[in-house]
Every structure is written in structure tokens, then in C-alpha cells.
């Protein structure tokens, strides 16, 4: 055996374990649920489950609701996290110190507890409503058991990590880049749009991908504080599977969610590759 072949075999052996793990816990389940999702009531294979997904009124409203919640949540998460991260990068003082200390806290509170906390705070007769009542404001908007509740929970769960991610991208932008921009005459707005944003948009995209996947697949918060109908796909999946015992339909839902995530992943990877091309 030549040295090259030996090295080749060694290389294969080295990647084999991780490939196997990937295969068993990712590829296989996806393939299996895809097969499951194509199984119809009489045991044959067709697209009936998918047709049902997109024609049934309730299912359709679930899908639209999920996309709405996801898109609004992701946009808000990015906007707030980016603002926080930019603020922390370019300011210092007491306020920044406090944000730095506080913004990670949500990461250390278990999801169920945080969700109950939000219900306590924002529910119909929760803390916020009672405090406002003291000031004579008697009508409190419906937040819990509504889209707003889920979005607020998503913000709570996702802002810390996204802020951390963006913060590290921003601190990788050297001061001299920004100072030299100032030096040639750029104002604050130009510095933001022509320098800071272009130098961090890749991480923004990473953040968007993570937030998107996290939100679209979320279960705890939508289950505990979402409306009964329409539902997020995760909750709907659980019902279809657990309550209605429609395994095939649940599989179709799961596969559809996977496709949505893949689309996001596709854009992410395409951007990454495009940029590599420019640099190389």
C-alpha cells in the first residue's frame, strides 16, 4: 500500500465516527420521518399528509401563525440585540457596566420557570396589570395566550445569546478601522452603515439563523402561554401526535419545519461561500 492510500484510509477512519453519529442522530431520523410522512391512511405512499397540511384551514393558519411569530421575533431579536451590542461596544460607563452584568441572566433561568414568570407578570391579572390599575389604567391588553406573549418569551430566550454573538463580532472590528473612517471625514451614520454593519453582517446572519431555528422549533413558551388556536407548529405537532395520534401527519409537520430551517440554512451557507470567494 502506498503512503498516500494509507493516509487516505486513516483520514476516512478518523471522520467515520463523527459521520456515523451525524448519520444516526440527524440523517436517519429525517429520512425516517420523511418516509413516515408519505404514508397514507391505507398504508400506501402519497402526498396526502402534505396536501392536508396546506389545505386544512386550521393547519394553514398554524403555519402562517408560526411564520408570523418567527419573522417578527427574529427581527425584534436582531434589532434589540444589535442595538445593545453596539451600545456596549462604543460606550463605557455605569450603564454599560450594568447591561454587561444583566443581559446574560435569562440564559441561566430554566425555560419553564421563565415562562411562568412571564405569565405572572403579563397575565390578565398579573403584576403589570395590577400596578397599572393602581394608576387608574383599567384596560390591560391581552398579552398572555396571544401572539404577543410568545414573541416576548422569544425575546427573553434569544436576546442574551444573540447579543453575546454580535458583541464578539463587534469587538473584532478594530478601533483603528473606525478611527481611520472618522479621520477621512465619515460621520456617525456613514460609519455605521459603511463600516460597522458591513463588517458584522455575517454574524448578524448567523444570529438570524440561530434565532430563526430556535423560535420556529420552540415548544415550552408557545405551549404554556400561546393561544389555543392558531398554534405554533411545535405545539400543533405535539397535539397531532399525542392527542390525535396521527403519526404520519405529525411527521409531515416535522419534515415541513425541517424544510423551513433548511431554507434559512441554505441562505446562510450561500452567503458564507460567496464571501469566501471574494476574499480568496
Amino acid at each position, binding site marked *: 500500500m502506498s503512503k498516500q492510500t494509507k493516509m487516505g484510509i486513516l483520514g476516512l477512519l478518523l471522520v467515520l465516527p463523527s459521520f456515523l453519529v451525524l448519520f444516526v442522530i440527524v440523517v436517519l431520523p429525517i429520512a425516517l420521518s420523511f418516509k413516515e410522512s408519505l404514508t397514507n391512511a391505507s398504508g400506501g405512499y402519497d402526498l396526502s399528509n402534505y396536501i392536508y397540511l396546506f389545505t386544512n384551514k386550521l393547519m394553514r393558519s398554524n403555519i402562517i401563525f408560526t411564520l408570523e411569530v418567527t419573522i417578527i421575533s427574529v427581527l425584534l431579536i436582531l434589532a434589540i440585540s444589535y442595538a445593545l451590542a453596539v451600545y456596549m461596544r462604543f460606550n463605557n460607563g455605569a450603564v454599560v457596566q450594568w447591561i454587561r452584568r444583566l443581559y446574560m441572566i435569562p440564559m441561566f433561568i430554566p425555560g419553564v420557570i421563565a415562562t411562568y414568570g412571564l405569565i405572572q407578570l403579563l397575565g390578565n391579572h398579573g403584576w403589570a396589570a395590577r400596578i397599572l390599575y393602581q394608576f387608574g389604567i383599567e384596560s390591560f391588553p391581552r398579552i398572555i395566550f396571544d401572539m404577543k406573549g410568545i414573541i416576548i418569551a422569544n425575546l427573553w430566550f434569544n436576546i442574551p445569546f444573540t447579543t453575546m454573538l454580535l458583541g464578539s463580532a463587534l469587538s473584532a472590528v478594530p478601533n483603528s*478601522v473606525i478611527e481611520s473612517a472618522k479621520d*477621512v*471625514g465619515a460621520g456617525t451614520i456613514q460609519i455605521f452603515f459603511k*463600516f460597522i454593519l458591513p463588517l458584522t453582517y455575517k454574524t448578524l446572519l448567523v444570529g438570524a439563523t440561530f434565532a430563526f431555528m430556535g423560535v420556529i422549533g420552540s415548544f415550552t413558551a408557545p405551549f404554556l402561554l400561546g393561544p389555543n388556536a392558531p398554534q405554533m407548529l411545535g405545539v400543533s405537532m405535539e397535539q397531532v401526535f399525542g392527542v390525535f395520534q396521527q403519526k404520519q401527519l405529525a411527521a409531515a409537520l416535522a419534515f415541513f419545519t425541517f424544510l423551513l430551517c433548511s431554507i434559512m440554512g441554505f441562505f446562510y451557507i450561500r452567503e458564507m461561500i460567496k464571501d469566501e470567494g471574494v476574499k480568496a
Partner: protein
Amino acid sequence: MDIQLSIQKLTKRYKTGDGVSDISLDVQKGELITLLGPSGCGKTTVLRSIGGFLEPDSGDILIENKSVLKAPPEKRPTAMVFQSYNLWPHMTVFDNLAFGLKIRKMKKSEIDQAISEVLKLIRLSGSEQKFPGQLSGGQQQRVAVARALLLKPAVLLLDEPFSALDAKLRHEMREELREIQSNTGLTMVFVTHDQEEALSISDRIVVMNKGHIEQVASPQEIYDEPKTLFAAQFIGKMNFLKGVVTNGRVMIAQLAFPNSKNLSGNVTLAIRPEDVQLFDGEEAGLPGTIKHIMVLGHYAEVSIDLQGHGIIRSFRPRDQVNDLRTGQHVKVNFAKTLVFPTV
């Protein structure tokens, strides 16, 4: 001569207590002046104050006779070249160069013209569409200098722009900068901690130490007549010997040296290695033993143990060391000595 830049009693203290104090300096139009000093002595602090990136605690900075203290960096007639990460990595060389000109609302044809000229000047024609990551460190710094030149600043500020480059390249860049300077007649303030660099490119050198100025003079003067002990030891190679003033004369052992500053008590003599002369025989001089002879190309470095007065180094032309050998007893005398109070 016109004074292009005037720094007046500039003081800047950081919260830590470090900084610079009472810096006053006038820079002539078309002059290349160097701030030289060890790391942490406050060079960057002065330069950033001129550029507007730091607000001084007190003092004033005038450019072309107008105070610029109130103006932010983008409004000052200065341009700065930083030590590293000067270029914007997401923009091509062309865009890096054009950005400032676009802000100044220059016409597209004029921008193209100016950029192709400046690229020729820095010998990078044809690199317009490259990204900074595709250039070497030296090329990047040249583009950074070019970008600053395009702004036609009243004063160009350079903060150790070549310190990240290797020695050979650093040499080339110095020459190139010097050439650009004489072609453009630009006023430049150049910061470095490298005394050789300072000696080779400057019209004048400002020697700084611990936040204040030790001496401002031409390279020759700084080399020949350092005003302070610090300047003497920081610039060029120097020997130091302890002496004492008796009857108005500086004495080492039985030998007397001129006391040009009329000092008294304990003093330190500073002697350039090239001024250390060796004799054998009966001439007057300090007795010593040759410890070491190192031939360094066209000259040789001879170390002599002065028997209780320390070790002294002498630079001799190579043909003069042929008949010297280690262990030989010699007499040492000095063509020139400088005297400083011992601190």
C-alpha cells in the same frame, strides 16, 4: 519659515495617572518631525491629541495658526496612519482610497485620476480591485499612506506605521516615505520607538521620556550633543563611566576630562564607542585589558575591561584591530566626552 503645527503646553492625564504633560512644540511647514521615545512615553497620546482622537486636559493645538481643539477628527486638516488595521477590509483598494474623496464630493473623473496617480507614487498601480487581505503588510501600509495623502492634509500623522513590518521592508518604507515627503512637501509628524528609524528619516527629532520632552534637535545634534542622560543613552550606542568633579575638573582615576557644564560632585561620562581610542605604550590613558574582539563587517567592536571602572566598548576600523588580541593590556582615551549629573 511658516509654523504649520504648534503644540502649546499640551497636558493629558489618563485616569491611571499616565499621560503627557506640558508638551510644547512648533513644527515647520514641510518638515518631517519624529516623536521618539520608549514604549509608554506618551508619543501616541500626543499624536492622537493632534488628530482629535483624544481631548487634552489643557493646552492648545494650532494648525496653520488656527486652534483645532474644538474640531472632531473628521473636521481637522490632519490625516492619520495607524500602526496596523488601517485599511477597511471589506472595501477594495480603490474604494479605500476613494471613500474620503467621495465624502469631499470630488468628481468621479477626478477621483479616478487622483487614485491612479497616488497608486503610481506608491508603486501599486493595477491593484485597484484587490482587497486589503490580498496585499502584503508593506503594501497595506503604503495604501494607508496613500489614502492619507489623497486628503491633502495640512499635517500627516504616522503612528509607528512600519513597526509591524520586517527589518528589510521597514528600511525600504522609510526611504519611500522620505521620498514622498520631499515630493509633496507635506508636514509630517512621525512616531517611532526605533532610534535608528528616527535618525534616518527625520528633519528633527523630539526625544520623549515619561510624558515629557527631553530634547528637540536635528538627528546630528541629538547624536553629537544629547542634552540629557536619557537622550544620550536612548539614541545610538553609548558607553557610560562614573566620574567625580575635583577642582572643577572631571576625573576618572588620574585622568581629567572637560567639565563643559560646570557640574560638581558625582557625574556620569558618556562616550560614543567610535570615540574610544586604544593605545599601547606610554601614552596617557586609562589602563585596561581587552576582553573581546568582535568583527562586524567593516568595523570591529572591542570590549575593554577598565579595571574597576567597568567595561567599555570601542568601535574600530577593521584594519586597526588586526594586531590586537584578547588579554592584551592597552591604554584607553576618548576623543570626545559628554558629562551629565549622576541621577
